[in-house]
């Protein structure tokens, strides 16, 4: 499936039906099929407008002056957009340092999770071992286990071994893979034909080489999906950095929630909005660029 058109096949499949419809000639029927659904369009436009307005408001707030934020009645559209708010938002707190922390943690975890999940997914899809069924059941159970339940006790244990305040927990989480992504890979690898590895096995290829040279290159859409999901997961995560990291090495997600306050401790909403926009932007840009593969990754993995 892609976000673009895929009704073409259905359309052609419909055509033989015209034989049964005796009275009206073929042309009007085909015209009615070609016609776009206006009612659906109108409803969708209204829903999309409602869903998009908050994003618009975030932008507008980011462009306002403190006076406009305090005005009564409220200022809807800032007359002189304060573009410099975006620059100021990166200066009242070490924005770029936090962004670098977020980028580093998200990339490291993303890469590690993507690789380890692929390895494990391959194992479940193409290899056999004692207790595989039970282990796969455990994997499914882990998919259903709320991460927040395990996070707090994991934090307590990390504190005991002195890993609090370091980035090692993210490395460990990355290496362990993510159950959901393992499942995606497993579904994808399981549907590939047996012949793919049979010849390689006869040639004496090791399992790791088969995985790296045959299976991994084939799973590009899933790789992209896995990376985007795990990258965004870490970029968007609030609780783990809040619990595990300090003021000086935490991520942007934590920093923007506490960084934009005045000396009395009240939030400075225009800078807060500007900071939030800058924080969300990479996620949106990334999604925009990879959405096709991303969607394919879902579609080809039997997540349906």
């Amino acid at each position, binding site marked *: *499936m892609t*976000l673009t*058109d895929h009704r073409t*096949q*259905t359309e052609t*499949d*419909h055509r033989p*039906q015209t034989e049964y419809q005796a009275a009206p000639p073929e042309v009007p029927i085909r015209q009615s099929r070609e*016609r*776009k*659904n206006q009612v*659906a369009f109108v*409803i*969708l436009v209204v*829903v*999309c407008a409602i*869903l*998009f307005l*908050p*994003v618009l*408001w*975030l932008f507008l*707030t980011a462009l306002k002056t403190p006076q406009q*934020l*305090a005005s*009564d009645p*409220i200022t809807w559209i800032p007359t002189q957009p304060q573009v410099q708010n975006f620059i100021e938002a990166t200066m009242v707190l070490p924005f770029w340092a936090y962004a670098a922390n977020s980028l580093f943690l998200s990339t490291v975890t993303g890469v590690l999770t993507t690789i*380890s999940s692929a*390895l*494990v997914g391959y194992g479940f899809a193409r290899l056999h*071992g004692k207790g595989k069924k039970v*282990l796969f059941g455990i994997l499914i159970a882990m998919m*259903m286990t709320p991460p*927040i*339940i*395990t996070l*707090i*006790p*994991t934090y*307590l*244990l990390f504190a005991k071994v002195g890993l609090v305040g370091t980035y090692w927990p993210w490395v*460990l*989480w990355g*290496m362990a*893979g993510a159950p959901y992504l393992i499942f995606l890979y497993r579904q994808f690898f399981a549907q590939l034909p047996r*012949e793919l590895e*049979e010849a390689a096995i006869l040639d004496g290829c090791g*399992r790791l080489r088969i995985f790296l040279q045959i299976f991994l290159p084939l799973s590009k859409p899933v790789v992209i999906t896995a990376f985007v999901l795990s990258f*965004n997961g870490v970029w*968007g995560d*609030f*609780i783990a950095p809040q619990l595990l990291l300090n003021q000086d090495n935490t991520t942007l997600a934590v920093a*923007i*929630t506490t960084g934009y306050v005045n000396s009395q*401790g009240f939030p400075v*909403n225009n800078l807060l909005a500007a900071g*939030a926009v800058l*924080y969300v932007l990479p996620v949106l840009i990334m999604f925009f660029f990879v959405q096709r593969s991303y969607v394919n990754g879902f*579609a080809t993995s039997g997540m*349906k």
Partner: protein
Amino acid sequence: MSTQSLARDVRRRKRRGVTGGSGAFYAFISPWLIGTVLLTLFPLGYALWISFTNWDGIAPNQNWIGLKNYTDALSDPRMWASLQRTGLLALAIVPITICGGLGLALLLNEKVHFRTGLRMLVYLPAIVPPVAATLTWKLLFDRDSGAINGVLAIFGADAVSWMSGNTVFVVLLVVMLWGIGAGVLINLAALQDVPAELHEAARLDGANAFMAFWHVTLPSISPVLLFQVITTTIGVLQTFVPALLLSPANGPAAITAVPEANRIFMVDVYAQYFAYSKYGYASAMLWLFFLVILLVTIITFKIGGRTVFYAVDPSKEGKEG
């Protein structure tokens, strides 16, 4: 050698373990296996052990107090109140998200103008990180500068202090409902897989659009819907970050300043740990909650399993059809 004899040879070798027996399998899954034991099962066990003690998080020794934390929790009206609030949140969010997500997918599956753009717009809020989503709605619901009170003012209504009192629960609901498009991609993929000839047959039998949806589309995509009901329910039950960030206070004070209307279960657990240092009691609450979520998941599976329609073999069915 012909391909068939090659394949036979491979199969024979595999039986003899030439292609790797359990060893290769365990080598490949070891990252996850070790990770699950160390980072999931062990912490869960650790929390279970703490839940039988009166540990305060600092003392070097933990005193075993048996089931006291559990009996305390079960007789604590505050615990029941937060459990009830969490249940209410799920009862409000899950049906709307599932039905709304399906409705949007059905509309997006129609031939409409700018379909690709509309799909991206519907999905957009679902990829906004929870922190940013909560901050955005906090600005919209701001008492003095927010758009919501701005609209109310146009109709002559007084400004509402959304962030205090019971109204903050409304804000929490709205933040969570904003992600209604999250299921749209999976729903669309499922809708593409509904065999066209089934619809064809329904039409020929004189079924109208609604009947075709009810008797053909819905049964075909029901496994996907069940999956979504379960993941959405688990997701809503463990809600924490939006409730915390809607607190009027900032930083470490935020957790205890969460208005009562938003004191859902994980807020309570977090406060018991880190604001009140009742690690034993909080761990007992955590485990009770884990069991509740497990129970809800099993019940949903049981009820859903009866209503869900599975094709003979979903994976093969799709390809042949």
